[in-house]
């Protein structure tokens, strides 16, 4: 069901407009009809959107740097504080980056110095002042000429991986040119001071990390700031949705609210300086949609929202597909054990969540409970329990059940198709009501003709004694149906056009219905193959485990658990998706659902 809505038109003096909007937000019940004035919005909204982006980035960084071991409590949320955080994070990150660069450079220098050992560059400078040049070289071992030792006072410092590290102490300038090898330039710092520098840099980087960790205590403030900016974006959008009148002295704003809240809204608005009017929606209005379903159908609203919301004057199909969906899910999964697993898991999680306030999760858990129960019932038909065929057991209970409820493969195949026929015919009946509601009874006549024709065939096939196939009564019904189909499919048009459209309809029905009904075979195929895979995993668990008193059962249990976990995941996925497809494609098409409504989102 779609909740009835009232249209509210407000007229506010331009000076009071902002105060009025704040009041409206406080009320939190009006869905404001927004206007697309992008050119105005963009300028004002751009800075908010940029701020949101920065805050989201900050939120991500802080979430990453939370120190889980310390387990410190968060600070109280503070919007102003939250807005400063991104800048602080940027500063810390900037410092950290520059420190990190220094660290990398120092580490490279250390690698360069390491083979030469720890010495003070100052002593080399002193030698330099005395006129002695000290030069550092690395050459391949076979290139080192031992005569250098006497000629240039070459001293080998180290030999490593067929390289020779040596220094020369001479009074000759540019000895490298003389020896025709490249001189090594060493950094002007000793190894020990470099080590100290690296340590202190690492210490400083750690300090920055700690600063970030401390900042993560303000995560609630960032979240609060995000919320605040989000609210400002909404507010700006709403503020620009009014139409200025009388030289921009007056602002005209339109909004919607459920009829059941009308009294409350009216008494609130009467206390304010604003002119308003509450009217019923006109057929051409784009009314926002709020579902109003009973406890059972409400569970299926998230599924209905996956496709599209109904238009305001259309029938909401949620309560009508809900029982079918439940049944189809059960048939597609079709295993008592799996159904029980879903039911028990959902119940357990729900019990754990009992003290927390009602959320979307709870509604989903209730849905899982319903679907699990349905799977258990559908599993009774095939007798699968975690892949074991219960009905092959030789005890009186399972034999009695086998007598009464067991469906073999052929029967399950037929059952899927029969369910398809039922859902499609039911969809057509809804199409009749939908057309009567939207366009008037005369537009529903051709659909009634089709329903008459199809049901007459079904009755004639099932009860030939009551309605003989092709008999007089049947012929009269068929004739009546044909008149409705061929001459009332688009009232008001030329009968010849109607006839042509009727033929086109017939072609579509003949090809479409066949495909639609056969599509329900998927229910059978999903249930069957899920059962096969489950039994394969059981056989594997028994067959593949080694013949060992300890390892055997462990391997068997592992294969059983992993196999069924995969199978439950895949089959539940299939059992969710395929009934969704049957609902949206086969059922919605035959019920002529067009959809396209906008969701009722009150301005808060």
């Amino acid at each position, binding site marked *: 069901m779609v909740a009835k809505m009232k249209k509210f038109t407000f007229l506010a003096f331009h000076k009071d407009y902002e105060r009025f909007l704040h009041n409206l937000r406080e009320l939190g019940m009006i869905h404001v009809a927004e206007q697309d004035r992008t050119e105005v919005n963009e300028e004002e909204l751009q800075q908010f959107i940029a701020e949101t982006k920065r805050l989201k980035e900050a939120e*991500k960084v802080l979430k990453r740097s939370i120190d889980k071991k310390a387990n410190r409590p968060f600070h109280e949320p503070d919007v102003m504080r939250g807005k400063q955080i991104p800048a602080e994070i940027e500063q810390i990150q900037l410092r950290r980056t520059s420190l990190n660069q220094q660290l990398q450079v120092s580490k490279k220098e250390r690698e360069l110095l390491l083979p030469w050992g720890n010495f003070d560059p100052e002593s080399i400078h002193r030698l330099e002042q005395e006129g002695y040049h000290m030069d550092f070289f690395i050459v391949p071992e076979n290139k080192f000429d031992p005569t250098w030792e006497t000629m240039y006072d070459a001293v080998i410092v180290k030999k490593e991986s067929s390289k020779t590290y040596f220094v020369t102490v001479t009074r000759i300038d540019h000895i490298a040119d003389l020896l025709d090898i490249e001189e090594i330039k060493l950094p002007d710092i000793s190894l020990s001071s470099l080590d100290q520098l690296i340590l202190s840099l690492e210490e400083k980087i750690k300090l920055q990390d700690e600063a970030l960790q401390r900042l993560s205590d303000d995560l609630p403030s960032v979240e609060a700031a995000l919320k605040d900016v989000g609210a400002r974006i909404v507010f700006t959008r709403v503020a620009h949705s009014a139409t200025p009148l009388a030289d921009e002295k007056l602002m005209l704003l339109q909004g919607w609210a459920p009829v059941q809240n009308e009294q409350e809204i009216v008494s609130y608005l009467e206390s304010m300086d604003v002119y308003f009017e509450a009217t019923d929606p006109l057929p051409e209005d784009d009314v926002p949609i709020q579902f109003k379903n009973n406890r059972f159908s409400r569970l299926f609203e998230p599924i209905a929202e996956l496709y599209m919301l109904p238009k305001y004057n259309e029938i909401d199909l949620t309560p009508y597909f809900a029982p079918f969906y439940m049944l189809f899910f059960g048939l597609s999964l079709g295993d008592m054990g799996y159904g029980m697993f879903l039911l028990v898991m959902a119940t357990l999680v729900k019990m754990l969540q009992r003290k927390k306030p009602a959320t979307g999760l709870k509604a989903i858990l209730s849905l899982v409970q319903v679907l699990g129960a349905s799977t258990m019932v559908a599993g009774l038909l095939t007798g699968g329990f975690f892949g074991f065929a219960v009905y092959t057991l030789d005890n009186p209970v399972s034999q009695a059940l086998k007598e009464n409820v067991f469906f073999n*493969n052929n029967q399950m195949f037929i059952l899927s198709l029969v369910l398809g026929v039922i859902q499609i015919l039911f969809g057509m009946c809804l199409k009749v009501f939908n057309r009567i509601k939207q366009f008037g009874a005369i537009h529903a006549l051709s659909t009634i003709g089709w329903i008459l024709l199809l049901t007459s065939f079904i009755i004639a096939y099932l009860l030939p004694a009551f309605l003989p196939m092709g008999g007089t009564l049947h012929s009269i019904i068929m004739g009546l149906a044909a008149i409705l189909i061929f001459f009332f499919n688009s009232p008001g048009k030329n009968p010849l056009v109607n006839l042509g459209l009727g033929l086109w309809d017939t072609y579509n029905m003949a090809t479409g219905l066949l495909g639609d009904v056969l599509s329900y*075979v*998927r229910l*059978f*195929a*999903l249930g*069957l*193959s899920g059962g*096969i*895979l489950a*039994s*394969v995993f059981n*056989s*594997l668990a028994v*067959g593949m485990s080694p013949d060992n008193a300890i390892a055997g059962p462990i391997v068997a249990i592992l294969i059983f658990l992993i196999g069924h976990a*995969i199978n439950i995941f*895949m089959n539940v*996925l*299939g059992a969710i*998706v*395929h009934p*969704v*497809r049957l609902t949206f494609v086969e059922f919605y098409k035959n019920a002529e659902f067009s959809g396209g409504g906008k969701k009722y989102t009150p301005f808060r």
Partner: protein
Amino acid sequence: METNLLIAYTGIAVMIALAGIGSAYGVTIVGNAAIGAAKKVDGKFGNFLVLTALPGTQGLYGFAGYFMFQNIFNILTPEITLLQAMATLASGLALGFVGLLSSIRQGQVCANGVVSIGQGHDAFSNTLILAVFPELYAIVSLAAAFLMGSAVA
């Protein structure tokens, strides 16, 4: 009859090989996309893992098919009849080819989903839903192989 057994095992080989090759291709297509996308977003590896695993099931169906003929129908014995052998071959061809192509195609759907998640769209559940559709035909073939097998066993 040895020839009958040869025909039957040819069917089994096609069943396992084609379905397995298809799954190998399918998971590789998604895996490649996931590695590329993992560079762009953090914390989505779980999503990528699930999507990468999806085309892997067809290979499993091929194996399950073999297992059915071996252990459930018990027809892979020297006493196998020509009819049983031909049914095994037909099941193998059907399950093998459908498994091969459906998992490659499913892999492409998943890979596009992974790329989309990598670009920052929240496309996980939508991809999961759409990727189930190519899978259906492999499921139907497995069910068909089961029906063929139980008809001749």
